[in-house]
């Protein structure tokens, strides 16, 4: 029957995209493990993986350096993409994202302040940093929401977000001025954004925070679909709008805070990846977009990280530099296309 064909086509497309993303993910993971200053052949890599850890340098590199780094890039890339998608659902606008709305910079500010002023008194475990970043994210989200009640135009809200981001960066810089040499080194390194130098502890923290948040986000896909039609329609279908909006903003902030705390601010992934995902799926259905965006974000960040650490090796690029180069043009194209369509 005609409708079954249509249903199959939708599901078929989703399966196809998921398979493609999985294939890319596996390639990305393998390449990330093998490539670097010490290059491993596929056979050497397979041997190492089969035999588990041993005392060799190669084993150390693969298990203690590349593997946590790669897993972190995958988890955080996926988390960032989903965080962006949640914000876009919240504002019903595809150009919202944690970076452009200044939310990442807010997280960075609080993490920076924590690093400088609390470094002596408490241990800066990844979990503590995530908490600090979460506080910063929520703070700036609250500011942006306050403005969003006055400013109905999304483009204008973006300008507000970017300005708020600058203010946060200025405060961070000010804090740096008063920091000790040692703190500055740490902070500089972190604040530019990188997946390097992170151990398994960061990976576990990222996984423990992202996994429940992602599942919770996916469970919100039904009201998210209804909310795409606006508050009034969502309410009329039985969505409890206020708790739903709160859940959306908390989850989005938590995911982006996790990323900022563990890897520093990473730009444009939150907008570009969901956009690419929607385009590939030809659908905005949250139940399909969320898992696909997670995979796409993971793949995107793995490849960006690969580029960051290999292109000018041994010098490493910031991860943000690479994601900007690939992400920002996507965002520009999107805005231009939207304008053109709106003008019709």
């Amino acid at each position, binding site marked *: 029957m005609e409708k079954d064909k249509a249903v199959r086509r939708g599901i078929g497309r989703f399966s196809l995209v998921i398979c493609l993303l999985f294939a890319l993910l596996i390639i990305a993971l393998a390449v990330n493990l093998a490539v670097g200053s010490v290059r491993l052949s596929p056979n050497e890599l397979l041997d190492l993986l089969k035999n588990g850890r041993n005392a060799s340098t190669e084993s150390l590199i693969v298990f203690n350096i590349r593997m946590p780094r790669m897993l972190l890039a995958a988890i955080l890339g996926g988390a960032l993409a989903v965080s962006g998608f949640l914000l876009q659902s919240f504002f019903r606008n595809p150009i919202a994202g944690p970076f452009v709305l200044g939310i990442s910079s807010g997280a960075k500010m609080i993490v920076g302040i924590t690093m400088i002023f609390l470094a002596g008194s408490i241990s800066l475990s990844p979990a503590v940093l995530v908490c600090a970043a979460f506080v910063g994210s929520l703070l700036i989200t609250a500011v942006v929401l306050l403005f969003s009640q006055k400013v109905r135009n999304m483009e204008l809200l973006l300008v507000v977000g970017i300005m708020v981001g600058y203010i946060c960066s200025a405060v961070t810089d000010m804090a740096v001025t008063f920091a000790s040499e040692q703190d500055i080194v740490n902070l500089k390194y972190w604040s530019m954004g990188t997946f390097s130098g992170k151990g398994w502890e960061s990976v576990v923290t990222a996984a423990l925070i992202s996994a429940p948040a992602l599942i919770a986000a996916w*469970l919100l896909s039904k009201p998210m679909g209804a909310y795409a039609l606006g508050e009034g329609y969502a309410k009329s*279908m*039985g969505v409890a709008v206020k708790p739903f909006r709160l859940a959306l903003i908390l989850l989005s902030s938590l995911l982006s805070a996790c990323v900022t705390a563990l890897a520093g601010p990473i730009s444009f992934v939150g907008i570009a990846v969901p956009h690419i995902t929607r385009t590939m799926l030809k*659908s905005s259905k949250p*139940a399909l977009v969320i898992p696909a965006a997670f995979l796409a974000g993971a793949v995107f960040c793995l490849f960006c990280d690969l580029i960051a650490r290999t292109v000018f090796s041994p010098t490493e690029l910031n991860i943000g530099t690479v994601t900007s180069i690939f992400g920002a043009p996507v965002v520009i194209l999107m805005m231009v296309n939207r304008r053109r369509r709106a003008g019709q």
Partner: protein
Amino acid sequence: MTAFFKTNGLSVGYNGKTLIRDIDIVLNKGGILTLIGPNGSGKSTILKTIARQLAAIRGSVTVDGWELFKMSAKEVAKKQAVVLTERIRPELYTVRDLVGLGRYPYTNIVGRLTDEDRRAVDECLALVHVKDLAERDFTTLSDGQKQRVILARALAQQPELLVLDEPTAYLDIKHKTELLSLLRFLARERGMTVIMSLHEIDLAAKASDLLLCVKGETIAAFGTPDEVLRSLPVEELYELEKGSYDPDFGSVELEKPDGKPRVFVIAGAGHGIPVMRSLQRERVPFAAGILFENDIDARVAAKLAEEAVIAPAFEPISEKLYEKAKQLILECEGVIDAGTPVGTFNEANGRLLALAAEKGLLKNE
């Protein structure tokens, strides 16, 4: 028969401030109630309260015997659906997916559509005649198509009550009439109860079983279109000062040219309407006659002419009226022959024409 929909001493407004009070509506199943009234009169506020988007300030609303404000959100969603004025632009949604969202109160926690849900969606698509648009992207549709799809989404909730806020805004005459015919069909054939607001009073009167006029702090009138439009003239409801409205035909005339009549129009049988409207446009005050009271020209002359000589229907024109018309002609600068044929009953008009010709008053258009 108990009423399907009822409000009792309902007061509505925002933030605890009452805008309109003492709203008492009684509407049977399968009936269409339309709210009319000037912009900003609070039609939307009433509809939003009925749709439970706004809390009632006082009073109660019952739907099918249920107290609306004591039902769960899900129960309400199964009982009533809405078409709102806010324009939606969901990106990358096919028509089928969008209508599928209407199954919200029936689907499981992740919103998966079952075979039954899909059947319901198909039925709704067919009902509003958008089946062949099912796989199109919603944003690529025309306004008329969009409004049908939005209606289909509401119908997918399988409601018994439809609440529509200005569903014909943005639509051209073809789509307006199609949409209203569709609502009539749903009401008559499917027993759907409909409450909506419209700006087009003429269409409201034709499509509705009941009208509710919203003006000021209370309900100005409530009843059948005939009762309402006779008890409360549209001119009064909308404070129409520069124009007039004919409730039977729903036709609007612009402001009457004021002053001493300068032209006399000899009219009848509808020939006078274009002449009188063109004089109105040129803002020339005029008199018209001699018209029988059942002549369509007489209705327009009553709204546009400074003075109209009207004769009783089905009788030859009396000498008294002839004299009155003659007097008016002699005071005018000119006479226009609208082209009305002169027959046995209106032979007086023939005499007036002859008189005008003799005095050199007759103008050739």
